[in-house]
Structure formats: C-alpha cells, structure tokens
C-alpha cells in the first residue's frame, strides 16, 4: 500500500511541475467556454440551454485528454531507466499501473469539479437530485478509468513517448466532434447519422445529459453502462497484460 501511495504522490508532484494538473483544470474550462461562446447561439438544442446541453461532452473530452497524458506516462515508465528500475524493486508488478490509474482518477475528479463549476456559472444545474448526481459522477469516472486503461495499455505497448499520445489525438477528435455531445444528430449529414448516434461518446453524453436534467431512459442508461463495463474489462485486461516483468 505504501508503494502505491508513494508512486501516486510521485506522479502528483511531477505533474504539479509539468503543469498537467493545471491543464486538467484549464481543458474543461476552456472547452466549455469555447463551445458555449462560439456555438451557444448557433446550435438548436430545443428547450435545453446550451450550457446544460454541452457540459457532458466537455467532461467526456476532458477524460479523453487525461487518457492521452496517461499514454505518455505509461510509455515513459515502460522505457525509462526509472521504469526499468521499478521492475527490479520488491513491489508487485501491477503497482506502477495502479499508481498511474489512481492519479488518473484524481485528475478526473479535478477536471470534473472544474468543468462543473464553470458551467454552473453559466446556468448548468443538476436538476435530478443527489441520486442522479452520484450516478452522473460514477459514469464520468468509470468512462475516465476505461479510456485511461486503454491509453495506458497503448503507451506501454508502443513504448515511445512522442507517438503514443499523438496516436490518440485523431480518435479523440473524431469521437468528440462526430457525436451528439456538441450538436444534436439532426445537424449532421444523414449518412453520418448512425455512427454519430451510436458511438460511445454520444451514448455516454446523452445519458449524462439525462441524469443532469432529471429524466432519462432505462435503455440509454443500460447502453452506457454496457459501454463502460465492456471498455473497462477489455482495456483493463490489455493494460494488465502489458505489465509483465520478464521478457
């Protein structure tokens, strides 16, 4: 346990210096302001205000950003002398992974609080009550864990600090921009409709939006939960497999 704490604190103090935690705050705040100020009056979201509509995808995007930085840290731990030395220490081989994930969770909470705080100033409300809010937070963090595990597996596998986060940039942009998170499905060309509607970012953001405003469908929640659990299981297994000590 103390090895886990020590490694997590190591990442924390490192990221305070390389400003990753600062970006964890700035990314959702900046994205939210950007989307709201630039698109708020252009996109028709029906009766829902744009801040209420867009916050979920801002949070999801912040989680994806977090995953990209995890890929870099995993690659660095795989390649660097530091990471090699960790594998010669009398600590469990999964501890460095666990520490990276614990940091991701902390980073996700920071981003969640920052994004929600700024959106509240523009009128975002958790209308559904405490139970819905707890579910909202759980889904955001579960999604964050899932994508971070995937990025960690990728970073450990690729083992190149420059390319691993770059590789994630394109899917990240595609998933966020071609989702119902920023604009309703009707605003996309018809041939893109099915992808836009059913891809995980759309599913997750729609469920989050429903939870925030207090009405959602059971089917939507089930699909979102299925996405999160499936991604957690798949990426979790992959990330664990990458942590072998001996080659």
């Amino acid at each position, binding site marked *: 346990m103390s090895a886990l704490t020590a490694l997590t604190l*190591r990442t924390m103090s490192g990221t305070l*210096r390389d400003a990753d935690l600062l970006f964890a705050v700035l990314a959702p705040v900046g994205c939210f302001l950007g989307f709201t100020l630039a698109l708020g009056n252009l996109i028709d979201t029906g009766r829902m205000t744009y801040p209420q509509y867009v916050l979920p995808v801002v949070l999801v995007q912040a989680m994806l950003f977090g995953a990209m930085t995890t890929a870099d840290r995993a690659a660095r731990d795989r390649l660097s002398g530091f990471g090699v030395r960790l594998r010669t220490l009398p600590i469990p081989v999964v501890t460095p992974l666990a520490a990276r994930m614990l940091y991701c969770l902390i980073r996700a909470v920071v981003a969640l609080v920052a994004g929600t705080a700024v959106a509240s100033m523009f009128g975002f409300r958790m209308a559904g009550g405490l139970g819905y809010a707890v579910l909202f937070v759980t889904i955001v963090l579960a999604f964050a864990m899932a994508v971070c595990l995937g990025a960690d597996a990728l970073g450990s596998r690729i083992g190149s600090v420059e390319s691993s986060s770059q590789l994630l940039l394109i899917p990240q942009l595609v998933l966020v921009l071609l989702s119902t998170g920023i604009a309703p499905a009707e605003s996309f060309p018809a041939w893109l409709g099915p992808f836009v509607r059913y891809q995980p970012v759309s599913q997750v953001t729609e469920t989050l939006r429903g939870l925030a405003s207090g009405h959602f469908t059971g089917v939507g929640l089930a699909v979102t939960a299925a996405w999160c659990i499936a991604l957690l299981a798949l990426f979790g297994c992959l990330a664990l497999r990458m942590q072998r000590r001996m080659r």
Partner: protein
Amino acid sequence: MPDAAIECLDLAKSFGRRSSALQGVSFAVARASVCALLGHNGAGKTTTINILSTLLRPTAGSATVAGFDVVRQSAEVRASIGVTGQYAALDELLTGRENLTLFGQLRGLRHRYARQRADELIERFDMVHAADRRVSSYSGGMRRRIDIAVALVVAPRVLFLDEPTTGLDPRSRRDVWDLVAGLRHQDVTVLLTTQYLEEADVLSDSIIVLDSGRVVASGTADDLKCRVGVSYCQVTPADPVHLAVIATALADFAGLGSDCDALIDQKAAAVSVPAPDGVMTLGEVFRRLDGLGIELADISLRKPSLDEAFLSLTSTAVTV
C-alpha cells in the same frame, strides 16, 4: 564456490531464433567482493546483468543471487539487490532528495525513515548543494552519483552497476571509483560491467571476460596478464628493413613453428618475443642480434598491458 553471492550456471539467452546474446555463461562471485564483467559492446554484459536482476528470463541455465534462484525466487532476489542501469534511472521531474525518499519508500521504509536515509546519503555522496534541485538540471556525474545512492537506499546484499562510468568525465569517473571502492567494507557484493580495462583493474577483485556471449577468461587482473605471457622483450632495429631477419632469428623464443610475421609490430617497427626468463632472455636476444651485426635503436623488457591480455583473449575466442 561455497560462499558465493552470485552464481551462474550455463546461462543462455536468445532473442528470437537467430540472435543469441549468451551461450552458456558460468561464473561465481564471492561474497563482499567486487567483480567486473569486461567485454566489448554486444559481448553479453548487460544481458547477464538483466537476467541476474530479474528483468530477463534466461532461455537455458540457472543463476542464483544472494542464494535465491533468479527465476523461481525472483521476489526474494529483488528484495536483496540494488540496480543501476546504463542510463540514470531517476524521475527527472523530482529533486535528488525526492528521488531518494521515493525509492526508500518503495523499498519499504516509512516516510520519516526514508527522509532520514535520504539525508544521510546526500551527505555521504557529497550532494548537499544540489539535493533540492530537479534531476533534469544535473550533470552526468551528479546524476550518476544520485543513481548509485538510490541503489543503496536500503543496503542491498548484491549491487549491480551496468557501465557505471560510461559517459562521465575523468573526475566524475574517479568519484564513482571511490564510491565503489568504499562499498567493499560494507559487506556488499558488487557486479559491475565495463568496457574499460583500467576500470576493471582498479575496482575489482576478479574479472570475467565476456566475448560473443561466452566467458573467455576469468581471474584477477594479474591472472589475466600472466595468461598471455610473463613479459615481453621488444627489439627495435635502427633500420626497419631488418625486422624480418630479426623475427626469423628470434622465432624459437616464441615457440617452435610459430609464425615469424606475427612477432612483428609494423606500426612500432619492432619485434616482440615472450621473455619468460626476463633479463636472461634479453641478454640472449642481444647477443644473438649482435652476432648478426644488426644495429639496434632500442631493446627493452616490458610487462604485457591488460589491453594486450584482453585483445589476445577475445581474439582467440573469435578464431576458435
């Protein structure tokens, strides 16, 4: 060896089907001694260290470190060793002190003791002036010092140093040498790798020469020198034209049927023959050449350098 801290038996490691890094390496290192693995790049030094520090699984053979099998009891091995790799293994974003404290905690020290231990090591390694700066601002020598200190945070029974002085300036190299020499008195067994014969000579009690994944010689530095020849008598004629004549005249000193040309060092314009009887041999050589009426610029007796020993040991391995 009854009291061996490291024992390797027929260690072999191949990567893929074609390249084999180690082909049956056996050696033992006595407790509380310093042993050097000497060899060129690609000789198998780092592969050996990586197997012994549980980073690589041997393809065949076995090894024990501090009495524990490196494959079956790898957790126990990890609890007994300290490792510094070829490149400093530190978190660049942290200070030297933070790195030391972190690794202390990872070795199971409580935070308070880890801090205390870090302070001690900073003092001992003469890093007080830089301990609170980020490692990314350190020079190569400072990095290396903190790196070795990290490996000593909890006194290991066996310490692996992979090319501890590669890339260091001469002064920092001296510092590292002093550090390693100091470990001798603390019941730490050290296995280091180096490409520098001088370093192996200065630091270690025993030397193992690796070449193409095989042990080609082992023993003390003096053993290795002796193996090549007791000493040499070197003759430099005033006129290099006479080199061949001299070589023929002295061929029997090098043993019957030996190739005369091999005795000639064209670059130095000299002929060298083994001189088992020292000055007596030198006198005999002088009389013989004097009888032939060859004018000499120089005649001298010298010990073989460790370089000569190393080259002759590794080159025979290539021809075999």
